[in-house]
């Protein structure tokens, strides 16, 4: 089982002139990650600031990096990259750290890195949920997503009394299956190692019960059904939060990690776009927009991405798939996620990528980027041609593991008999912890490199306010007309449709700058601009000013998240 994922050389990114030494990035414990961040900040003090946004429930500092080229005047638009909200997705932390490192190290030599960091601030929160992530480095190893409050899952009046345990002493929390006439699981016809839920509608009768590996410490004939932690940071945000769900926490922002992230975003109006490496995905799977003006139901607006935003996000998603070749659609609930809060309640452009999963196709003999993912998935849609049993997704994953050879065999543990202290004869095995979350070493490096490619282009997509024209025209009798055109050369509009709806993203402020001696005859000195499309969207303003013939006139535009500009009004030639 590889605890370390080796990343290949980043020479391709650093430019042909410099073939950097191979970089080794590991899956890092909290302490190791802290040392890496510290080292990066110490090596590149002019580019990288390291700080904390809060403290986890167990007292670990929540670290972040701020990367920006020197010499910014005013505030640059910012990107926020957040990884590892789902505690088990430790791999995403390594990718985020790789990005930070590549940006810091590439700034001196790489044009694209410099272009990004000279125009944009990049915030990186590589590990949003350090408490749960630490389980990756403890023995026994377990996929732990929860780090929050303890709930009485089995309603026996006790909390946390029946947690998983490493029965066979192999250092991993796997799965436990037991033959039971009340069972709800059967063997997959195409691969008996895989269990699928029995479908009574097809006359299937359950044979197995399936539990996490563990004892029955409370004697209720259920195994590991009441672990000591239940609240999940990635279910603890206000958008779509589900009250009384066992994993949602007592209230949104109850988890200190979630609250710290909420406050972090609220304190930084320069953040224009959020990229989340976690369990959600809106870059591979189709995002269906809801109408911009879809009516509220019982006063509550419908959930989801607004149509006009979905269209633009769709184009970014296309570029994402082009840059990364990723076909990883995420499964899983969307309740109370950070991703949803950022978009639905803050109006931020929000991208989410689930970096890896075991493919549903056997590995290619030659590594070639998947060019036609839709076609590749085709065989699994609909019925198998020859009438053979249709394999479950898990069976397909197992097929991939089998084909990938000895190096990947750790991902599935063959069922082996075991004498359970409470249940008697059982079998322990199944997918190993992290089997579906951590790619093979070479693949991990590729994923990180390709996602960096995507990240490098994000800065150029952001909205920027520029003053395309600023002219003055003397109308006689000391009256001057000032005309200014504000333009957005970026791809994205100044505010998302959601940002305009929620009124949470700040509009840009357009101000006529005039001397004391001048008097405004027409127009408003200060205007707020929120609707400015991307790709060259323009907005014109006019003012009439009375004053001395040689008075200095100009226009300024200030945006919290799209830059600022000033331009003197000139007579048009």
């Amino acid at each position: 089982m590889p605890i370390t994922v080796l990343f290949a050389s980043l020479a391709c990114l650093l430019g042909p002139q410099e073939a950097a030494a191979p970089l080794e990035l590991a899956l890092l414990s909290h302490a190791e990650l802290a040392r890496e961040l510290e080292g990066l900040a110490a090596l590149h003090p002019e580019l990288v600031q390291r700080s904390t946004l809060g403290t986890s429930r167990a007292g670990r500092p929540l670290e972040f990096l701020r990367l920006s080229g020197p010499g910014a005047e005013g505030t640059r638009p910012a990107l926020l990259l957040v990884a590892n909200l789902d505690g088990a997705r430790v791999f995403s932390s390594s990718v985020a750290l790789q990005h930070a490192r590549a940006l810091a190290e590439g700034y001196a030599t790489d044009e694209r890195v410099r272009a990004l960091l000279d125009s944009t601030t990049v915030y990186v929160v590589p590990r949003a949920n350090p408490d749960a992530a630490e389980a990756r480095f403890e023995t026994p190893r377990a996929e732990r997503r929860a780090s929050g409050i303890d709930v009485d899952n089995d309603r026996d009046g006790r909390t946390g009394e029946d947690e998983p345990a490493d029965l066979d002493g192999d250092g991993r929390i796997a799965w436990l299956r037991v033959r039971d006439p009340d069972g709800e699981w059967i063997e997959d016809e195409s691969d008996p190692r895989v269990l699928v839920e029995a479908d009574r509608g097809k006359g299937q009768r359950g044979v197995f019960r399936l539990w996490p590996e563990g004892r029955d410490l409370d004697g209720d004939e259920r195994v590991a059904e009441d672990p000591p932690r239940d609240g999940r940071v990635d279910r603890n945000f206000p958008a779509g939060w589900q009250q009384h769900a066992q994993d949602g926490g007592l209230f949104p922002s109850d988890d200190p990690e979630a609250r710290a992230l909420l406050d972090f975003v609220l304190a930084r109006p320069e953040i224009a776009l959020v990229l989340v490496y976690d369990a959600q995905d809106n870059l591979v799977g189709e995002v269906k927009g809801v109408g911009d003006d879809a009516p509220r139901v019982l006063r509550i607006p419908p959930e989801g991405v607004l149509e006009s935003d979905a269209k633009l996000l769709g184009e970014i998603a296309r570029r994402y798939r082009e840059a990364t070749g990723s076909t990883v659609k995420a499964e899983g609930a969307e309740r109370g996620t950070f991703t949803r809060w950022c978009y639905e309640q803050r109006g931020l452009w929000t991208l989410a990528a689930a970096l890896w999963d075991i493919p549903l196709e056997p590995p290619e003999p030659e590594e070639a980027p998947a060019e036609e993912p839709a076609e590749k998935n085709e065989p699994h849609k609909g019925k198998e041609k020859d009438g053979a049993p249709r394999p479950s997704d898990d069976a397909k994953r197992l097929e991939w593991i089998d084909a990938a050879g000895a190096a990947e065999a750790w991902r599935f543990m063959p069922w082996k008999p075991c004498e359970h202290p409470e249940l008697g004869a059982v079998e322990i095995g199944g997918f190993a912890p992290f089997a579906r979350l951590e790619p093979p070493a070479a693949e991990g490096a590729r994923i990180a490199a390709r996602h960096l490619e995507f990240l490098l282009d994000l800065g150029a997509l952001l909205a920027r306010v520029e003053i395309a024209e600023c002219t003055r025209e003397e109308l006689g009798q000391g009256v001057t007309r000032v005309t200014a055109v504000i333009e957005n050369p970026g791809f994205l509009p100044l505010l998302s449709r959601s940002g305009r709806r929620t009124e949470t993203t700040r509009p840009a402020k357009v101000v006529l700058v005039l001397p004391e001696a001048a008097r405004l005859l027409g127009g408003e000195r200060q205007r707020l601009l929120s609707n400015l499309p991307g790709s060259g969207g323009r907005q014109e303003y006019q003012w009439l000013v009375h004053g001395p013939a040689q008075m200095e006139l100009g226009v300024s535009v200030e945006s919290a998240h799209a830059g600022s500009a000033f331009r003197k009004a000139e007579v048009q030639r």
Partner: protein
Amino acid sequence: MSATLQAMLLSLALLQEGAPLRPGFPGLPAGRAPRVEIAWNRLYDAEQIHALLDRLAAEWPELLSYQVIGHSVENRELRLYTLNDPATGGEREKPAMWVDGNVHGNEVQGAEAVVYLAWYLLENRDSNERVRALLEGTAFYLLPMVNPDGRAHWFQRGHDAHSSRTGVQPVDDDRDGLFDEDPPDDLDGDGSIVMMRKHVPGEGTHRLNADDPRLLEPVPPNDRGIRGDWIYVGEEGLDNDGDGRINEDDVGGYDMNRSWPSLWQPEHVQGGAGPYPLYWPETRAIARFLLEHPNVAAVQSFHNAGGMILRGPGAEAFGEYPAADVRVYDELGKDGEKMLPFYRYMIIWKDLYSVFGGFVTWTYEGLGILSFTNELWADEQASPDGRLASRGADRHFFDDRLLMGAGFVDWKPIEHPLFGPVELGGFRKDVGRVPPSFLVEEMVHRNALFCLRHAEAMPRVAIRPPEVTDLGGGVRAIDVVVANERAIPTRTAMAREKKIGQPDRVLLEGSDLAVLAGGFRTDRFRPERIELQEKEPARLLREAGLGPREELRVRWIVRGSGPAVIRYQAEKAREARLELELP
């Protein structure tokens, strides 16, 4: 000190002799004087409210104390007063009632109602049997001011009856990047923000009332060219930030009664909600306290105004409340209508307006506690027969005849930098949403006593004497009836549906006892009909708790003999305990 002791001894002696208790003040007017004299015909600022409670705590140190559960944005203490008789059990062992006031800074009289409640209970404890019993079985958590900053601003600065509702954390209301830079301005420095009207002959929308020129009335739309001579130009204030508007970015700009986690909605759906639930320190401190005190079994929150006894749901989207709980709500709410003249018992979304993220909806929907909001004071109360209402003429009549005109700032000219010559005038901030001084006491008394109606309904569990049946072969059945003697269930239907808190427990303990089986009987006459609990029959779990005045029949099958104890444990009721001896 010796007086306290004497009074206690005296009342104890009376109790023992079974002699009638001597009624006292407050309650009856000819009784003895209260031990702590408080003027109940006025309102107090934030510090004075604490000072009043401190006087009570000094007089009854064993019964009343406070803890600071948090601090406001301006670092004022959130003092949570606990009223409990520790000689009869710790506060956490008893069902407790939470009572708060003044979450909206301008809705001040809730704090006085909270203080009155404490004062009433303390003053009457030694002379009123029901009050004594209440304090034996119940604790009270009293937070007079949820929003002490808002209260302080309302008292200290220029405001009208409706402003200073918010807390004081700056919010950029007009989204210009500046925070709280254009509040109303108390131009004449009289402590009230009133209206500004401008004389625009023939070009206005309003005219002076013919009978009373203090009143402006709208000129109805017409085609006859009739126009008014006056316009309103807004509330007293300036264009402080030069954006062409007045008073558009006041202090704060949020609503701490839209911040609670049940069906919370963001700002663009629910104005005032803030960026996430429990964003403000005051709200978060209270939420933490309540989450850590599952013994709270009743909640009352005091607001103003309009004369209402409100319950959730706050929004239609929540759906109906479980019928079993609605019956209890109705029982209390309808009594409240009789106790509080002109108050109506209402459902928030249906009868008032939609509120997402309200406090009492969270305490019920999130915590499973029966909860009310009372809106204190209705204009109709100005006259016992309700003939004076909220119309301008009625208000002036009342103000002229019963307050000698003290409540109205008569129109006076000023020079406004933006509007030129205008007139300032209107009712003062302490008119309209709070009662006049001479009616304050009635308001706080009736509302405090509504709390006691609610508090007396909190669950009380009793275990009736058990019946032991010999089943032969050394095996016996123990049948026992466990009863909730009150209207409020130990677990509301909401709590049991949503699995809030811990299920109730019925325990049978005896060192020489083997409990073979146990469960709840489903049939009064057929003892064999029983819902057996498979595991741990000596520790029966009951998710449903005990409903309103419910009698639950429990049966255990045991072997053995000797002393045994039966206990009923619930988060929101005192433990009931019964000892028995199996021969």
